[in-house]
Every structure is written in C-alpha cells, then in structure tokens.
C-alpha cells in the first residue's frame, strides 16, 4: 500500500484547550501547521469543563502566586515538580487576561473585573482560609474557553484537519520524532504527516473506567501512540475521582457548586465533611472528599434505597444564584437525575475524572525520557521534535492529585509553552530529516490485521472488560490482592485486544474501525495504570492502598515511568527545587 505524504513545519494532534492554544501561537508565528482532531474542534472535551480557570488575579481579595503554588504542591501531595508548578502559577494570570482580550465571556464583578469563585484546595495565606481564585463563565467555563480559542484560531487562519485520527507516532533510528500517520474518517484514507515538530494534545483516557465524567472520545490515544513508539508513561497510577458525578449517569456536577456554598450530606442529613476536614470542609482537596464519601458509603451512611450515593445540597443558595452561576448544573440535574436542585439535593458519587499522569514532559512542554549517553544516565533527556501539553502530558504540575481549575490553567500555560519551544526548535534546526522508508509500517500492520481478522471478539466486549476491571481493581480504595489480580487480568485482556474483529468493512466514516483503533490505546493506558498502581506501595494523593496507609517519602517520593516494551517500570526523582521560590518541604497533609 502506497501511503500519501504531506509535509508541515509542525503537526498538532488535538484541538482541545491545549491544542488550540498551541496552534494559535504556531499559526501566528507564520509556520505551516496542521491541527488534527477526531472531532470538530469545539466538540473536544474541554467544552465540558464547568467550574473555572485557576489564576491568582486577586480580584476578590488578596491573592498571590506563592499561595497558588503552595496549594498546588500540597494538593499534589508533594509529587508535583515544583519548577513546573512555579512556572504555571506565575504565567496563569497573564494567560487569563489574554483569554479575556480574545473575547472570553467571563462573569464580571460590579467594578467590571473578572469574577472568581472559591474552589477546593485553593486557599489564602498557605492553607488558612478559602480564597476566590477560579475565573469562570457561569458553569460553562470550558465551553466559553474552547469556543474563544477556536474563534481566535479562525482569525489566525489555522489549518485544521477535522475528523482525522492520528494512529501512530513516527520516529527515526535516532529516536527523533518526525510526525504521525493519520486516518481521514470520511474517506478511510491513511496519510503520513511528515513534521519537523509534533505536539500531542490528545486529552485524557477516562474511558478506561466504567463510571467517568469523560466523553466517549477520551480514549488516551496520545498515550497509546507514545507507548507504542517506545516513550514511557509517567505516574499513571494517579487517577482523580471527582466527588460529585451524578449517581448512575457519571455526568459531572462542578465543584463550583460547593465553591458557591453547596455542601454534602449523608443519609442522616449530617454535613460529614466537617469530620474529615474541619478547616476547608467540603472544599478540601478532591482525593480527600472522595475518600470521605467512599467511607461514608462503606460504613452504611450512604443515601438512597441502596445506600450507594450521597446528597449534594444547594437549594439554600436560592434560585437567583443557581440561575446566575450554576444554570448548566440545574439543566444536568433535571435531565440526568430527575430533580430540580432549586428544591432537592442531587444524588452524587465519586466518579473518575482526570488523569494526573501522562507523557513525561518538562515545564517547556518538551517530552523527556531517561537516556544513557557518554557513560552518564540522564533521567530527562529531551526527545527531539516531540512535545506534549494538556491532560495527555505529565509536566508534572498535578502530581498525585490535581486541584480543581488547575487543568484549564495547565492547558493555557503549557499549550503556549510547548508552542514556543517548537518555534525555537525550528529556528535552531532549519532542516527537515527524512522519514524512514518503513515509516507507516506499524499503522499498515494494525489496519491489515483489523481488515483480515475473522472469528475475533467484538471491540465493545473487550472494551467493557477493560472498564469493568479498572473500576473493580483500581478504584478509590486499592487493595494489594485486587491490584495483583488486576494486573493479571489486564494482561490477559491486552492479549484479547489484539484479536478483536470489526464486521463493518466500509471505507466511509467507519466508526467501528475507529473504535477498534481506539481500543489499542485504551489498553495501553489501562495496563500502565494498573501495573504502576500495583507497584507503588504507599498512599499518596489519589492513590490509596489498604496495606500502606500513609505516604512514604523516604521510598516513594519519585515519579513512576511505565514502558510498554516488557511491561516494566522505572522511577525518576521529583523536582523539589522551584525556579526562584523556596522549596515547599513535604509535611503531613490536612485540610
């Protein structure tokens, strides 16, 4: 099969918040850029973000990037890299102002400045009291941000490849990244996109769990492509369970509800968070609130006929506040829980929400991997030509637990930083390296296998197995025997995933084939998560093990790296030294 080729300065895979912010920078720099997305850009999952963007603007009272930094490091349970965190919180205000200048419809204060609401884990003066730091547009912040960024890209005449799915990452013998192969969904044609620089902004992989706030398209494609090309995945054991997914449906109810004054009740009507986090209560960090909820349910204090959910009360905010600040939530509660929150509490459960891990990068958005050269080993050697930003990347600013609002901040800051790194790289490396002759081989083999496979299992069946296994073996509370069994099961499922069958053989918009290709990525994300979780023998942030109840800094203050090749793990140190600030030393984490 002769595969067509096209050449660009840069290829951006993903048109969510991170991809669009990066694309804007690259287009405005006058480069030839191709931006690929599985869906029309404004359908990317950033559109679903509700609560806000974290930035210490100080519009509602005193705030400082140092406090934002402290909260983020503490929220990460000290697994976040402090240089990257300092970089992010210091860039954040600038990028929020810029977004405002682009036309983002932020909510406003009487004096005309951007309105900011309180959010979990964000505090004034190093944990003293809640601060209002989340810049929002009602409870549709992600929608407003994604559309604004798309609009700005329309103005910049960015070139989009809409409904193109990247399939594999291309590297040459030296390891340099030279683009991707991709499938045009409408025609079924495969093309090689040869690029001098490649940026992944492919978002999360929440679809490896059965109960998730993530969209159908969040299948971890960037992770799968990177892993197949020999790039390790970092800290994949850390999955955030959001405290308030609608029970049974998984759809998210933003933490902004609690920011605006809502709180959680158990079946006895008790505001139980007062017991678990006397200071910040319902606005403690997400891992803390989710564990408290799971404990309430486990100990028989859950609400509902089966005692399997808790109640989020917000009627006391009054219809005006709910209509003004949380209109989308009201819509969701009515549609997915059949209740009107103006009158009744919303049934909620902890639900998989966010992947703290991902493709390892530094704070410049460059992908970094351990390498051995000149007799010395470097845990973070730059992979030339390869960049990642957003949820698919691990910078790591979120460490073991992300604070709400810090992902949208991450998209803006690292989307832009990665683009700037690309611009510099292209200036310093003006040539174009040739593609190896067999560049498209892996992709062709995958497609040929799918076309030829008979008597295989259905993709839906194997996908379901992955989700069931992750949910049962790798949940809010993790048990050593369950994890060990989980590893075994996931390895078996990986085997089955390589023998799936697609009945639909059409070339035109073959969504069955697309789902099969996504499965190849889901399984890598799942395997990385389970294997990394089984190995980490401590409890830190979102990773809570029944046999090792506390954080163990002397043995585990380190990042996990999972390699697909050999299904093996390595570790690398956490950056404890910020860029300019003083190190925030690990201590016991209470809220």
């Amino acid at each position, binding site marked *: 099969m002769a595969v067509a080729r096209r050449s660009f300065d840069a290829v951006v895979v993903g048109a969510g918040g991170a991809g669009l912010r990066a694309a804007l920078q690259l287009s405005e720099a006058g480069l030839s850029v191709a931006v690929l997305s599985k869906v029309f850009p*404004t359908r990317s999952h950033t559109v679903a973000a509700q609560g806000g963007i974290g930035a210490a603007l100080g519009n509602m009272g005193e705030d400082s990037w140092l406090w934002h930094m402290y909260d983020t490091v503490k929220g990460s349970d000290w697994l976040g890299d402090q240089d990257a965190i300092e970089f992010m919180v210091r860039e954040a205000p600038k990028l929020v102002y810029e977004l405002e200048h682009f036309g983002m419809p932020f909510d406003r204060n009487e004096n005309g400045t951007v309105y900011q609401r309180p959010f979990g884990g964000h505090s004034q003066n190093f944990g003293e009291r809640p601060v209002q730091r989340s810049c929002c547009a009602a409870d549709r912040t992600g929608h407003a941000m994604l559309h604004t960024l798309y609009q700005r890209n329309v103005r910049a005449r960015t070139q989009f490849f809409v409904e193109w799915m990247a399939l594999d990452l291309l590297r040459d013998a030296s390891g340099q990244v030279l683009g991707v192969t991709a499938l045009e969904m409408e025609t079924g044609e495969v093309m090689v996109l040869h690029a001098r620089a490649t940026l992944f902004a492919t978002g999360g992989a929440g679809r490896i769990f059965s109960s998730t706030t993530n969209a159908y398209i969040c299948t971890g494609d960037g992770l799968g492509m990177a892993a197949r090309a020999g790039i390790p995945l970092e800290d994949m054991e850390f999955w955030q369970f959001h405290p308030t997914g609608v029970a049974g449906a998984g759809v998210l109810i933003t933490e902004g509800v609690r920011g605006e004054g809502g709180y959680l009740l158990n079946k006895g009507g008790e505001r139980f968070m007062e017991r678990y986090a006397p200071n910040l209560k319902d606005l403690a960090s997400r891992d803390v609130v989710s564990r408290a909820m799971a404990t309430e349910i486990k100990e028989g204090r859950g609400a509902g006929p089966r005692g399997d959910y808790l109640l989020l009360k917000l009627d006391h905010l009054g219809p005006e506040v709910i209509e003004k600040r949380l209109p989308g939530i009201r819509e969701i509660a009515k549609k997915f829980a059949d209740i009107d929150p103006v009158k009744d509490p919303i049934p909620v459960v902890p639900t998989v929400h966010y992947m703290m891990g991902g493709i390892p990068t530094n704070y410049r958005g460059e992908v970094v991997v351990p390498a051995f050269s000149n007799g010395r080993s470097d845990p973070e050697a730059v992979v030339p030509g390869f960049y990642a930003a957003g949820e698919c990347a691990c910078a790591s600013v979120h460490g073991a637990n992300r604070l709400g609002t810090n992902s949208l901040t991450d998209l803006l800051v690292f989307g832009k930083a990665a683009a700037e790194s690309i611009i510099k790289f292209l200036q310093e490396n003006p040539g174009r390296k040739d593609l190896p002759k067999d560049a498209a081989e892996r992709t062709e083999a995958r497609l040929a296998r799918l076309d030829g496979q008979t008597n295989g299992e259905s993709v839906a069946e194997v996908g379901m197995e992955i989700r069931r296994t992750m949910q049962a073996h790798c949940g809010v509370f993790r048990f050593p025997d369950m994890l060990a069994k989980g590893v075994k099961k996931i390895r078996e499922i990986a085997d089955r995933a390589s023998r799936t069958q697609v009945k639909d053989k059409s070339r035109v918009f073959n969504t069955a084939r697309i789902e099969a290709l996504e499965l190849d990525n889901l399984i890598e994300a799942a395997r990385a998560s389970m294997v990394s979780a089984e190995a980490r023998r401590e409890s830190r942030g979102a990773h809570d093990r029944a046999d090792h109840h506390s954080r163990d800094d002397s043995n585990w203050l380190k990042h996990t790296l999972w390699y697909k090749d050999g299904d093996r793990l390595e570790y690398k140190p956490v950056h404890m030294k910020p860029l300019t600030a003083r190190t925030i030393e690990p201590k016991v984490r209470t809220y």
Partner: protein
Amino acid sequence: MRFRIFRYDPDKDEKPAMRDYEVVLDPHDRMLLDALVRIKEQDDSLSLRRSCREGVCGSDAMNINGKNGLACITKLSDLKEPVELRPLPGLPVIRDLIVDMTQFFKQYHSIKPYLINADPPPEKERLQSPEERDELDGLYECILCACCSTSCPSFWWNPDKFVGPAGLLQAYRFIADSRDQATAERLDDLEDPYRLFRCHTIMNCVDACPKNLNPTRAIGKIKELMVKRSV
C-alpha cells in the same frame, strides 16, 4: 424498544433505506444515545457522531421522530415507538446519521466569529459591567449542533447564501459584546437580501434548539439595529 433508522453507506448501498431494530435496554439506559450505543453493539456498521453524552459538544444532532435534537439528552421514555431516526435534514449525508456540515460551518465562519477590537489590550482585563456581560447570555452558549439551521426552510433553499439561525445568533453575540468595535462592519456585511433577510421569522429554529436559545430574537435585534442606524 423499537427503532427505525435511516441507513446509507455510499460504499455499498445504491440508495438509502430505513432499517428496523429491536433492542433490549438496560435499566441504566436513559437517553436515546444510550440505546444507539446498544444498537451499535449488535450492528457495528451503524454510524453516528457522539462525544460528550451530556449535551454540550453538539456532536449527535439528528432528526428524532421528525424533530431535530441531541440524542444524548433526549429521554427514551419521552419517545413514541418505533423511534424514527434520520440525519439532519438539508445537509448532504455522508453515511447513516452523519451529515456533511461544511456548509453550516462556512456560514458560521463567514460572520467573523471572533472579537474585533483594535485598541492595544490593557495590562489586565478589559472591564465590562455585569449588565454588559448579561447581554451575552442566551448567545454565547451555542454548541454549533446545527439543529436550528437544518430545521430552517430558508437555510434548506439557500445554504450557500443565507447565514442561517446559528450563524446569525453568533453574529449578534459579537455585536452585543461591549468589547467589540466592529458593529458597523458586521451590520454592513449582513445588510443583504440573502445573508440576513432570508429569515421570514418562521421560528422553527427556536423550537429546535436543544439549548433553549432563541436565534429569532437575535435576528430581530440585528434588524432593529439596522433600522435604527438608517434613520
């Protein structure tokens, strides 16, 4: 539950046909999209777009029992059987329930859907009062699903010339923004027998919008502004 679904694969079908399906639903299957995912487990060749499953991404607009809507927020319990599903009317079908949205997005792009303000931006945010910001409510929330434009007869007849309700709603979103300086230019662009004035206030669009937005009102406001500036 019973369904009749429009099927067409240009790769193998000579012409479209309606196909019947019967599925056993799970108690958790609440919305039409849940049922479609289940049908796809039986017959993987059924093609549709979907992503967020909560009514915010705009992917799964289709014609449901004769009315445009989003499958993911259409309750199964509200639907009459057999549920008849067709692609959005008025746009070319690519396959099954997937339509070619090129024309729709072209119209959206034609209204310069971005803030125009030539002043150098201040160091911090541009100020905007809460009242000025309120003007954007009911406009910025559009998810570009095309339910409205594909229910509008004027758009069916002139998809290349009439901007359509979705595009006009967004045109007004920027006109209404206190930070935008291009009102005159935007009005000039729309002052045209087709681009704006093909709208005959038939109101199908308002009925179809799954986000409860009101393109007709926005169109009315644009017309008002045109009248105002001509006197």
